[in-house]
């Protein structure tokens, strides 16, 4: 249930999305296994809202975003954008849908063709999907450059002549060229300086207000997601473990992984920092090629129970708009005792990777 948006009109509906990459071996490329990058993920994004997708490196959040736009061929599942099925669409019907769904990429250096001018880059979607005359196209390119705050005089320059923030603006202008309704922002600020991050995020928010855009905002920056997202989904090892409106997720995280992740957010106030207790989870993320039996988090969970090693918890709605996949939450009666026991035993060190 989106915060702050009045309508409940679902724009993007993802059901049971699976994205497996085959592992092949030998001369004949025989398939010997799968990397389960995205494993049975379901979520809905409502029109005009921003869904934040967070998780540590390698948890499948980028893959998920790309599979939703059919940059990969999904292994299974259904993706409906504005009522049209994307997951199984053929080349032509997919091409017809392309204007409605676009993407802002992580690396503004790699996402712009170094041999094309800014006008060429922003104009490419127009070449492909519209029949504008040269003059109309140029006018549209200038309009887009105005929208993202780029000087029109730069239209004939090449990407290497720009700073990271300006390049990201070029990428945003390209994504906007065909008036999309849905944009996947794949870590759009991760490669930028902190001072520039705020500018780009503000630009994205401003464009959302003005153009009524819907975002899937993928990031590992929890504070930034808190700033921009209406609802937040937390991914771990290919699965969404918790999905909730922003305030309730940051206020009272339910899943042990979410709790640990949020406790790792840097706290600017040293007084608060001194009294804060970090939840430190041990070990490493298991390989997505060979995930553990039962709950994916059972190998590292501080509150692990026997049932977690046997049965994969169902992703279910525990309160309106709050979805969690954890046995603890569903077996509320046992929660208190188990949690106390495992916290008392203490855990060995280490880190939750936050950056890439």
């Amino acid at each position, binding site marked *: 249930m989106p915060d702050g948006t009045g309508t409940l009109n679902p724009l993007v509906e993802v059901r049971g999305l699976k994205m497996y990459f085959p592992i092949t071996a030998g001369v004949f490329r025989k398939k010997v296994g799968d990397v389960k990058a995205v494993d049975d993920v379901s979520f809905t994004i409502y029109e005009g809202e921003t869904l934040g997708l967070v998780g540590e490196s390698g948890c499948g959040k980028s893959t998920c975003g790309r599979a939703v736009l059919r940059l990969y061929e999904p292994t299974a599942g259904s993706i409906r954008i504005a009522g049209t099925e994307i997951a199984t669409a053929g080349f032509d019907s997919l091409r017809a849908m392309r204007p409605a*769904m676009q*993407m802002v990429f*992580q690396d503004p250096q790699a996402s712009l*063709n170094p041999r094309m001018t800014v006008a060429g880059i922003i104009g490419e979607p127009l070449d492909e999907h519209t029949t504008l005359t040269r003059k109309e196209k140029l006018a549209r390119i200038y309009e887009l450059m105005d929208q993202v705050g780029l000087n029109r005089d730069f239209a004939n320059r090449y990407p290497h002549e720009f700073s990271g923030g300006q390049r990201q603006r070029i990428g945003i202008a*390209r994504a906007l060229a065909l008036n999309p309704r849905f944009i996947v922002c794949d870590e759009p600020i991760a490669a930028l300086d902190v001072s520039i991050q705020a500018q780009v995020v503000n630009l994205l928010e401003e464009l959302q207000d003005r153009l009524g855009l819907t975002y899937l905002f993928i990031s590992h920056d929890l504070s930034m997601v808190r700033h921009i997202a209406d609802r937040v989904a937390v991914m771990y090892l290919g699965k969404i473990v918790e999905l909730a409106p922003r305030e309730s997720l940051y206020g009272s995280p339910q899943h042990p992984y979410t709790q640990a992740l949020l406790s790792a957010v840097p706290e600017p106030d040293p007084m608060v920092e001194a009294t804060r207790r970090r939840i430190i989870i041990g070990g490493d993320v298991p390989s997505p090629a060979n995930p553990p039996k039962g709950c994916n988090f059972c190998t590292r969970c501080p509150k692990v129970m026997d049932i977690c090693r046997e049965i994969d918890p169902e992703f279910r709605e525990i309160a309106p708009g709050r979805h969690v996949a954890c046995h603890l939450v569903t077996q509320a009666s046992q929660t208190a005792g188990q949690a106390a026991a495992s916290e008392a035993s203490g855990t060995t060190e280490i880190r939750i990777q936050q950056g890439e």
Partner: protein
Amino acid sequence: MTDARPASVPPPPGRLRRAWQSDFLWSFRRAPVAMVSFLVVTVLVLAAVFAPLVAPHDPFNPATLNLMNGFTPPGQPNAFTGESFWLGTDDQGRDVFSTILYGMRISLFVGFSAVLLAMVLGVLLGLLAGYLGGWTETVIMRVADVQLTFPAILVAMLIFGIAKGITPPEYRDQMAIWVLILAIGLSDWVQFARVVRGATLVEKNKEYVQAARLVGRSPFAIMTRHILPNVLNPVLVIATISLALAIIAEATLSFLGVGAPPTKPSLGTLIRIGQEFMFSGEWWILFFPALTLLALALSINLLGDWLRDALNPRLR
């Protein structure tokens, strides 16, 4: 809102001006070897292209030949006719200097055309293999691997032999040049394909290619508009070095007697003719064509070496 502004946008700086200020020319102006090589190549190519204007005689016009002029040593007057020739004459009284100029024409034409053929073929197959992957890639690259196990000259001779077998005898001399181009071109595409495939594998995973796919661009448009311009640098280097190799390959084939016919001699044919007289004292018939071939191939190769360094961002 888009009224007068577009007019105020300055045009991109002139291509010439940009080219002059580029890193590329800067590194050229600082490489004496490259400059000398470039000078030698330019002089030789111009001399070959304008051979009819430069050459003192037309060696292929029997009317102007005088058999009495045969075996004139370089720089000395002929014992019978009193005519003198810079680089001497061959057995039939043809001016060696003129035959070299005309021979270089054939050599350069065959070299350029063969490299062009190899480049087009190799770049196309390399792009397809790299971008499409799967079975396309397996088939193309295995064929390339197999071909790479044979020496290029052997492959060229094989193609030459087959082509000669299927062309009617009366067209053979006419077709020889084209068959030569085909043979050298087909024996040389592998390098281009391998390099382009490697570069394509790198480029296709970059996000700008995904952005193009997201726009709905067809694979063909992505290959030609996005990937090709970004893999051309190494292609240019290989093309230059291949040019030297192709000229040598042509000379080798002609030397072996399977290349350019004696009626249209290339440098290789001239060397073959010349080596018959090497031990009878008429050294100049062999020496000057061979020296020209050496200068041509060496300069192009040195130019290619410099180009490789100049275009390599890691060496800048």
